[in-house]
C-alpha cells in the first residue's frame, strides 16, 4: 500500500526543461518561491498609476460587506474564503500590462499562469500585446505592488497600458524603451530611470512617477523567459517538445476515441 501511495503522490513540477529559461518560468509560476524585489514604489504612486481612485479616497463598493449580507446557504461560499476586497464589497478594477517581445522578463501566457498560481480572485484575459488582470480593487493594489516592484517588471520593456497597447512587437526607441503611442513613460537621462508622466489610462499625472532603472542587456539575457535562437535555441528543447508532442497525441486520440489512450 505504501508503494502505491508513493507512486500516486503528486508533486508539482511546474514546467519542463533544464536550462535557465525553464528555470525562470518555474520560479515565476511557483507560488512557494519568492520573487526578488528590485525597487520600491510608494503606495500613493501605485494608486496614481492605476488611475482608478485618488490616494486616501475610499474604495467604491458594489455591494455591502459580506458580513452584513444575509445569504442563503451555499456550500461553495462556505468553502471559499473571500479575498479582502470581496469581503469588503469592492468594485472590480483592472491593471493591464504590455510586455515587449525583446527579452521580456515575463510574457502574456506566463503572466496568466503566474496570476492563477500566486493570486486569488483573478480574472485575466491573455492577448499577445497585452494582458489584463481584473480583481477587487484593494486586492488589485496589493497584486500591483508585486507586479511592479519585483523581477517581473522591467521599466523599459514592461509597461502599464490601459488603452492603445500597440508596441510589444515594435522595435525599441533610441532609449531602449518599448513603443507607446500615448507616451505614458519616458527615460529621464538625469535620473537614469524610466518615469511615468501619464497614468495607465494616458491621463497626465500631476507629478511624474519614477519606476526604476531599465534592466541592462546582460541582466535581461539571464532573466529572459522566452527561448531565443542565439541564446537558448527552442529547437534544442527536447523535453518540452516531447511533452507537447505527447499532449497533442493524446488530445487527437482522446477526441476521437478515449479508449485509445488507455495504458499509454
Amino acid at each position, binding site marked *: 500500500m505504501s508503494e502505491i501511495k508513493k507512486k500516486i503522490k503528486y508533486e508539482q513540477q511546474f514546467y519542463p526543461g*533544464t536550462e535557465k529559461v525553464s528555470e525562470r*518560468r518555474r520560479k515565476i509560476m511557483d507560488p512557494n518561491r519568492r520573487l526578488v524585489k528590485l525597487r520600491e514604489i510608494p503606495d500613493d504612486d501605485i494608486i496614481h498609476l492605476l488611475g482608478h481612485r485618488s490616494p486616501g479616497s475610499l474604495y467604491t463598493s458594489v455591494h455591502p460587506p459580506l458580513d452584513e449580507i444575509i445569504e442563503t446557504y451555499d456550500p461553495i461560499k462556505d468553502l471559499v474564503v473571500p479575498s479582502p476586497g470581496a469581503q469588503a464589497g469592492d468594485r472590480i478594477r483592472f491593471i493591464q500590462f504590455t*510586455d515587449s*517581445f*525583446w527579452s521580456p522578463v515575463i*510574457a*502574456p*501566457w*506566463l503572466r496568466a499562469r503566474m496570476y492563477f498560481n500566486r493570486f486569488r480572485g483573478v480574472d485575466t*484575459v*491573455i*492577448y*499577445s*500585446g497585452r494582458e489584463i488582470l481584473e480583481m477587487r480593487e484593494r486586492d488589485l493594489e496589493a497584486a500591483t505592488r508585486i507586479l511592479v516592484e519585483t523581477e517581473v517588471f522591467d521599466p523599459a520593456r514592461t509597461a502599464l497600458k490601459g488603452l*492603445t497597447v*500597440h*508596441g*510589444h*512587437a*515594435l*522595435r*525599441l*526607441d*533610441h532609449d*531602449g524603451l518599448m*513603443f*507607446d*503611442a*500615448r*507616451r505614458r513613460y519616458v527615460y529621464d537621462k538625469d535620473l537614469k530611470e524610466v518615469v511615468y508622466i501619464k497614468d495607465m489610462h494616458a491621463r497626465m499625472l500631476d507629478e511624474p512617477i519614477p519606476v526604476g532603472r531599465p534592466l541592462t542587456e546582460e541582466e535581461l*539575457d539571464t532573466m529572459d*523567459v*522566452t*527561448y*531565443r*535562437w*542565439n*541564446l537558448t*535555441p*527552442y*529547437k534544442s528543447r527536447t523535453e*518540452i*517538445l516531447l511533452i*507537447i*508532442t505527447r*499532449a*497533442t*497525441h493524446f*488530445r*487527437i486520440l*482522446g*477526441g*476521437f476515441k478515449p479508449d485509445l489512450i488507455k495504458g499509454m
Partner: protein
Amino acid sequence: MSEKDRRAKESEYTYELGKLVEKFLPTEQERLIYKTMKKIFGDNPMSNIDDLMYKRGGFHQKRRKEEFFEWGRKIAKERGIPSYNRAVGIPLGQRALEPYVISGTDVIVDYDDLHHVNNAAIQQMLDDIKRTVIINLDTTHRVLQVRAGKEITPETINLYLETVQHTISGGAVAQEHMAEIHPGLTSDAYCKVITGNDEIVDMLDRRFVINIDKVGFHPTRAAVLKRDIGDTIYLVVRAPTIAIRMADGGVTYRWAAMQSSMAFISAYRLTGESIISDIAYAAKSAQVIQIGERTWYSRARAQNEPGGIPYGYFADIQQCDDKLPAEPYFKIIADDLIEGRRYMSKVSQAGAIIAPMTELLWYGFYMSGGLGFSSAVAAGAFCGNVIDDLLDNFSEIQHRSISRVSTVPPKWINIKFITDMMIQAAMETYEKYPSLMEFHWGGAHRISLVGSLAGSAAAMLTGSPMIGQMCMNYAIGMLMKEGWVRTGWAGQEVQDHLGLAYSCAFRMEEGGLIEFRGPNTPYASYTAGHSSGAIGACLSAQLGRGRAYVCNPIIKVAFADPDLKFDFHEPRLTIAKAALREFMPAGERDLIVPSH
C-alpha cells in the same frame, strides 16, 4: 583520479551562441526577407532600435492619411456634422507607417489601401464569388424533352445561351411592357457553359463556353477535370454585381432561376404552364451548386455569403495552381527543386484570396463591421514576401532531405518533425528580424502565418488535409505558445486546443470532413486567423496528392473564367492594382447618378 572524476559531463559543455550571430550575417543578407524589410523600413532590418521613433511627423508621414484628414475637414464643413477627426483619433504616426510591398512584385502600396472598404478589387473578389451560381442544364433539358416533347439540339442550346445573356442582364423576353434594366449597369452579368465533353464544346458557340483546354489549366489537370465533370452541361451564371450589392448573396440563385427560366420560355416557346415550375425547380434547387450554404441562426446569412463557403470550395476558387502538373508534390520535390518551389509559391499566392475572404471580409466585416480586424492579418498573407521566403527555404530543405519513399504516411509522430523544423525556423526569423516583427505587429498576424505554414507543409507532403489541420493546431496552440509564451488575442487559440480533439470528428457540431468545414464551423467561428491554415491545408493536400481540384471540379473551372472581373489567377496583382487606383470594378452607378 577515479573514472567518475575523469568522465566529462555533457552538461558541462555549453556554447556561447551569442558570438555566432555575426558569422551568419552574409547568409541572412541574401534572403528575400532581408531585402524586402530593408526596402520597407529603409534601415538595418536586423536592428531592434528605431532611432526615428516619435520623430517621423505623425500622420503626415503618409499621403493617404493626409488625404483622410483633408476629406474629414471637407465633410465636416459640408454637412455640419464632424466625420473623420484627427483631434479625437488615436495619435497616429508615432511609429513608422510603413509602406507595404505586394509579395512577388515590386509594387508598393499604402497600408490603408488594403482595407477592404478602400480596395475595389477585394470587394469585387467577394462580389464575383457571391454572384456565381451553377445550374445543371441536363435536368432542365430532360424536363423539356419528357414533359414538353421538345428537341434539344446544339442550335436550340445556342439560341438559349444567347437569350439568357439578354435575360440575365435584365432584358425582357416573353412579357410586354416591362421596365428593363440599363445594360450599362449590368454589363458584368453573363452565363457560360462548362462540360467535360469535347464534342459538345465544339458544337456550342465558343463565346458562351468556358473551354477547359483553353483557360490555362495544365493539360494533366484539364484531362482530370474533363473526366470528372463528364458529359453533363453546367451553366455558370453570373448575376450582376449591382444586384447582389442591393440585396445579398441569396439573390444570386433566385436571379439565376428567374432569368434562366425566362430564357427557356423564350427559346423553347413555352408559356406560363405547369412545366415552368419544374424548370424553375431544376434551376433553383435540383442539382444547383451554391458557392455558400446558409449559415446557422446566430450568424444567419443567406446562401453564397462567405461564412457558408466550405474550405474546399475556397481552395477550388483560387486559380493560382492551374498551371502546375497534376503530380504528387513529394515526388516533384525529390527530383526538381525549382518545380517544387513553384508548388510552394502557388500556395502562398493563393493566400491573397483566402486571407482577405476569411479574415478581412467574413470575420472583419460580416462578423465585426466597423473598422474590422487589422487588415495586416490578411496583408501578411500577400505582402512583404514573408511567406514566400519561408516556403522557398523549406522547399530547399525538403529537396535535400527527402528520400525515395513510396508515400509519406499521414502519421502524426512522423510528420511533426517537419512542423517543428519549419515553425521554429519561422520563429527564429522573427527573432532575427525586428523589422519583420514590427511588420507583423500583432499575435494574430503571426499565428495566421505560422498556422498556414504548418498546415500547408504537412498537408502537401502527405496529401492529407487532416494532418495539415493537426499540424496547424499543434504549431499555434503548443509549439509557438511554449516557445514565446505568447500567441494571438484572447481565445484565438481556443480553436487549436479544440481543433486537435475535433480533428478526426465527423459529427457536424465538431466539424466534419476538413474540406466541408468552413469559417462558420461552430468551434472555429468565434476566432480568426485559422481559416487560412485550414484552407491552405486543403489546397496543399490536393497538390500533395497530385489532383486537379480539391472538392468540386465544376467550381474549379467556373472560376477559371477569364471574363470575371477579379482575376483569380493573379490575385496579388489585382489587389495591388486596386490599391494604386487602377482597377475598375463592376456594379458602379455612374450611369444613373449626376456626374461627380
